């Protein structure tokens, strides 16, 4: 009995020690662990493929029983959506091109200038606690850890493990996912009022006049605050003391101490959508990701449901700026200066991921220094 107990204790001790060593090695990024995973993948993929072929009829039967009605409903909804989006797509493409040209003219980075690698989702995580998918491209395509992954709708996640011919992508719903984002809030109705000694062009008898300029904002999409074509600066209204309206761009900025005499210029871009930076965090598959750290600024105003969320970019961010992430689905207000918590409805449908695009993007801080 004593010998039996000793053997059992020794076995448990050995198993515990092995587990701790393996966990430590993996958390420290050991190449041995990566090699083991990669080798196992080579052996296991054929077995998995065979199993997938054999079990597909069972999966189809199950899906037929449980999802038939929802698929029919979704099919109808998608047909309506396609019809609705056809017109908007054309104007959106034109606007995106305009925006990219404008960014290129100003020497700013655009998504069009970033190389990408198209891949297909070949598997997903069978776990209840981590949301990852596996794609069929790896280091051979230039993919590196941290690179952002998109599908046609928007951002879906980032690469966390790379092997020669496959990569693991952590989805944005994973609790470990975090990304700097911008919330684009709809601008308030613009009303610029100038009150002073400056006579209006149309009024010669009154000493005080009011000139009101309302800039018309044309929205061509269903997303409030997102105006394709809004890259064009709004018209500047300039009122000179002599009552002659100067052409846009011909007048300089206000000078200190001369505000009543110098021309008044409504700054360009005053009615552009307001953006505020925050941090997006995943909360698991059953909960929508949230955005934190959006400050309660008066200028930014209340965040509206439906406001678009895009990546913030920056020197240390793993994603380039202006990649579509989703829209605000719920605003949870908090007291004090904490700012609201914003629930995000992601643009990409994570239930039906197929072809994805890995942006071969590295922030400037991650790029190797040239000798």
């Amino acid at each position: 009995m004593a010998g039996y107990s000793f053997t059992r204790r020794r076995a448990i001790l050995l198993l515990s020690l092995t587990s701790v060593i393996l966990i430590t090695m993996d958390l420290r990024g050991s190449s041995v662990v990566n090699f083991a995973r990669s080798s196992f993948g080579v052996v296991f993929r054929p077995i998995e493929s065979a199993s997938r072929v054999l079990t597909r009829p069972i999966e189809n039967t199950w899906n037929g029983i449980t999802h038939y009605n929802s698929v029919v409903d979704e099919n109808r909804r998608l047909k309506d959506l396609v019809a609705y989006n056809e017109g908007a797509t054309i104007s959106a493409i034109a606007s995106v091109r305009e925006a990219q040209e404008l960014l290129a003219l100003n020497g700013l980075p655009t998504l069009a200038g970033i190389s990408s690698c198209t891949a297909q989702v070949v598997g997903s995580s069978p776990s209840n606690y981590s949301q990852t998918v596996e794609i069929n491209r790896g280091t051979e395509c230039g993919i590196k850890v941290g690179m952002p992954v998109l599908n046609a709708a928007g951002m879906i996640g980032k690469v966390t493990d790379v092997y020669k011919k496959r990569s693991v992508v952590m989805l944005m719903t994973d609790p470990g996912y975090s990304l700097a984002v911008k919330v684009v809030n709809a601008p308030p109705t613009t009303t610029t009022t100038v009150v002073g000694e400056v006579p209006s062009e149309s009024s010669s008898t009154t000493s005080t006049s009011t000139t009101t300029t309302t800039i018309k904002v044309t929205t061509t999409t269903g997303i409030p605050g997102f105006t394709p074509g809004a890259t064009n600066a709004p018209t500047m209204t300039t009122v000179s003391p002599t009552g002659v309206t100067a052409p846009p761009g011909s007048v300089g900025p206000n000078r200190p101490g001369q505000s009543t005499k110098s021309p008044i210029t409504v700054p360009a871009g005053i009615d552009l959508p307001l953006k505020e930076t925050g941090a997006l965090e995943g909360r698991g598959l059953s909960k929508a990701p949230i955005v934190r750290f959006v400050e309660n600024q008066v200028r930014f105003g209340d965040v509206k449901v439906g406001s678009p969320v895009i990546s913030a970019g920056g020197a240390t961010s793993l994603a380039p700026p202006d990649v579509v992430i989703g829209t605000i689905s719920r605003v949870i207000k908090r007291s004090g200066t904490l700012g609201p918590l914003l629930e995000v409805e992601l643009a990409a449908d994570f239930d039906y991921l197929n072809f994805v695009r890995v942006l071969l993007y590295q922030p400037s801080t991650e790029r190797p220094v040239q000798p």
Partner: protein
Amino acid sequence: MMDQFIAIAENRYTRLVLVGLMFLSLQTTLFNDLRPFGVCLQVMLLLAASSGLAKGSQTGAIAGFIVGLLYDLVLATPLGLCAAVFAIVGYLAGYAHSFVHESTWWSRMLTASIVSAVGMILLPIGFTITGSENVLTMHVFTVAFVVALFNAMFSLPVEFVCRWALREPSAAR
């Protein structure tokens, strides 16, 4: 050389690895898509628990460790975490069932169910210890309940498979 190869091939844990690969392929394909109540069913955990029920706590712990390690190799979670948890599950299954005076089909189902639930609660605790955040939520209990129910239903046939895989080489011939 050949004798050594045959000895390895005849080893009961080699058979368990082969059975584990089959179960793992089902886990990553069939059970990854069939998600009743939004929960991914855990056949690998069932295999670990059934090993303990079939062959006792010590063999259950070793078998659970092997099965968990196979599972770890396809997950993005730290390697060795599922191995440790599944080893505990295998050990608990064998240990708890050793107290049953006359084993019946329902006592084995009940044991498999309880240890599976324990395993599904230990896993997120392990993830939290190794640095994951927002994993330990109330959803864990839903997952544990659904997995426990499923594992209870299928524990008897899987236990039969484990009994076959883990029998001694002489008996297997």
